[in-house]
């Protein structure tokens, strides 16, 4: 009831802004502590991420991955589940994409391969999330622990498959053979340059639009369908959900599969879009960044889109800044990411309760007058 008295902008703008500012201030102090100028570093970062066309392209390329993993975390979160296994699901989703491409690239055109690759990513990602989901729903084992374990199992499985089955014959490194061009996700720069839009030689590709579609899809699914209502009820109050006749086990399993499928789409961007072959560790860290993105984006597709752009900019800017300031490596971005998770996730009550309390008191005082 008190919630109603807190202005909307406090929750969707003021508090996230405060959290990110705090994360930036502390990261700035770290940069200062290692004898560098944080303002200068921020300048290079912003220029690297937005200052020139190729930089923007890279920012969008990173953002594509973060939209997928952020949405994956968000969907599960809305149902009260913590999917920490985005990393493994993205990895296995990429395997699905790779297998489709390797099987069909000689015989089929892009227009056939693309939808099949999307299905491949979704099915493989969902399957990898299915087992932890089933175990949580039917056998009561904790989803956080099982999804962590599944990340490690995914990584062992991929090494096994790459070494024994998928390694290309012509190269020494652990890559599969390079796909034929029919299985390459078109780069946006090849599509946009005829229109006069220049994004340099950046790796951002058609998967970016698929990511935007997924944002819309999640918004529709979670907020505007019967099933979405069920999953939000489950997330808000599992007892009430059960009492209302919702099959909570079934919803849990399906939510996790949707979440896994979304994470699996990282494979589209990475395998089909950029690497054009199957390889190891292409999902490195994207799954965990998804947690920061979802928390930062307040578990809403629009917020996640904005947070993904922010983190895309941080990744790209962080890579860029190290050219000019070699003491600052992309690892500083990992620190920022951790701080964002800390302040907007673990310490969310620290400011939220006080700020909300302030507005509630103010509203109450205004009423008395």
């Amino acid at each position, binding site marked *: 009831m008190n919630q109603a008295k807190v202005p909307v902008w406090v929750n969707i703008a003021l508090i996230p802004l405060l959290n990110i500012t705090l994360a930036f201030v502390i990261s700035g102090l*770290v940069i200062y502590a*290692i*004898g560098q100028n944080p303002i200068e570093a921020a300048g290079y970062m912003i220029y690297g991420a937005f200052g020139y066309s190729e930089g923007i392209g890279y920012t969008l390329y990173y953002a594509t991955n973060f939209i997928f993993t952020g949405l994956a975390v968000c969907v599960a979160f809305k149902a009260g589940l*913590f999917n*920490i296994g985005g990393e493994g699901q993205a990895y296995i989703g990429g395997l699905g994409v790779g297998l489709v491409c390797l099987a069909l690239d000689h015989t089929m055109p892009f227009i056939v391969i693309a939808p099949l690759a999307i299905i491949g990513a979704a099915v493989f990602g969902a399957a990898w999330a299915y087992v932890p989901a089933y*175990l949580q729903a039917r*056998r*009561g*084992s*904790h989803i*956080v*622990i*099982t999804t*962590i*374990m*599944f990340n*490690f*199992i995914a990584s*062992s*499985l991929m*090494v*096994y498959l790459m070494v*024994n089955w998928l390694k290309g014959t012509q190269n020494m490194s652990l890559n599969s053979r390079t796909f034929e061009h029919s299985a390459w996700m078109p780069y946006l720069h090849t599509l946009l340059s005829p229109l006069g839009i220049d994004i340099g030689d950046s790796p951002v590709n058609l998967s970016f639009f698929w990511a935007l579609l997924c944002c819309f899809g999640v918004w529709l699914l979670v907020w505007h369908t019967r099933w979405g209502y069920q999953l939000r009820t489950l997330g808000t109050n599992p007892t009430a959900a059960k009492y209302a006749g919702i099959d909570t086990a079934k919803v849990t399993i399906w939510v996790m599969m949707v979440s896994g499928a979304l994470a699996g789409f990282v494979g589209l961007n990475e395998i089909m879009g950029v690497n054009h072959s199957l390889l190891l560790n292409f999902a490195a860290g994207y799954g*965990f960044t998804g*947690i*920061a993105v979802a*928390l930062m984006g307040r578990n809403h597709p629009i917020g996640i889109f904005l947070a993904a752009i922010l983190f895309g900019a941080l990744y790209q800017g962080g890579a860029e800044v190290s050219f000019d300031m070699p*003491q*600052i*490596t992309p*690892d*500083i*971005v*990992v*620190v*920022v*990411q*951790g*701080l964002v*998770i*800390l302040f907007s*996730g*673990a*310490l*969310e*009550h*620290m400011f939220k309760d006080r700020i909300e309390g302030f507005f509630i008191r103010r509203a109450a005082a205004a009423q008395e007058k």
Partner: protein
Amino acid sequence: MYDTLIQMLDATVRVSAPLILAALAGLFSERAGIVDISLEGKILGSAFAAAAASAVFGSAWIGLVFGIIASVALALIHGFACITHRGDHIVSGVAINTIVAGMTVTLGLHWFHLGGQTPALSGDQRFLAITLPFAHAMQDVPVIGQIYSNLISGHNILVYLAFIMVPVTYWIVYKTRFGLRLRAVGENPHAVDTAGISVTWLRYRAVMVCGVLCGVAGAYLSTAHNAGFLKNMSAGQGYMALAALIFGKWRPVPVMFACLLFGFLNAVAVRLQGVIIPGLGEVPVQAIESLPYVLTILLLAGFIGKAVGPKAVGRPYVKERA
């Protein structure tokens, strides 16, 4: 054959030692109701602090102290988020792991200019192997001689500390007043509160103990097992310890055996790398490597026994207000 077995068991002990320390650390935390997936980050943070301090001050012991300080500081952040601010334990753990992963490399690069590593440690900067009395004399005694001089003797002091901590933990958790309260606060914090004992302070003490033990585990990695800090050198051992904690059902002695089992699987995987079994082909080493995780999942799902954690684990404690 016997020599090979001894060698593998010896490797098992080396790999298990940090797992045991970290898993016991997790035991204190989770028995008090605080889920701790930041074992990983604390180990990594301590490994870095220990190696850095040891390189600067030239003493592994000073390194150990700094490692423990770093780890306890991280534990206090976890406590601040989970206990004081009722934050989500998992989210806080992920945050700490992420911050440490980035921070260690950033600071390492700044201090040592070695691409995020610390300088190679040698001599007093490391914990070296200790030869137990009569180890050489016992060498030739059949069966027992091998076990004593090659398996039991010849480890560094932190390995012995890890194994001593098992009965010590057992004693603290089951035989002391603190231990009783610790278990109570993880099962039913309201009862503890009603008895007039501070839930907050008790849980803070638990996470600090957890920090100390993780600190030793981290120092072991960088100043005993290896000679220096490498980027992300904990490589999932914190998570493996968490798995061992669950596999040992949150009890000290079974947890130790779980760690030994996981360590043994690791030793087997290393030894079987590239070995070809007639009729079966090359051994899928990755299958053995992932066995600890698979076993833990099977246990959690109730297919082999049943693992039930402390009742109030992961739930913030809110005092009831009138």
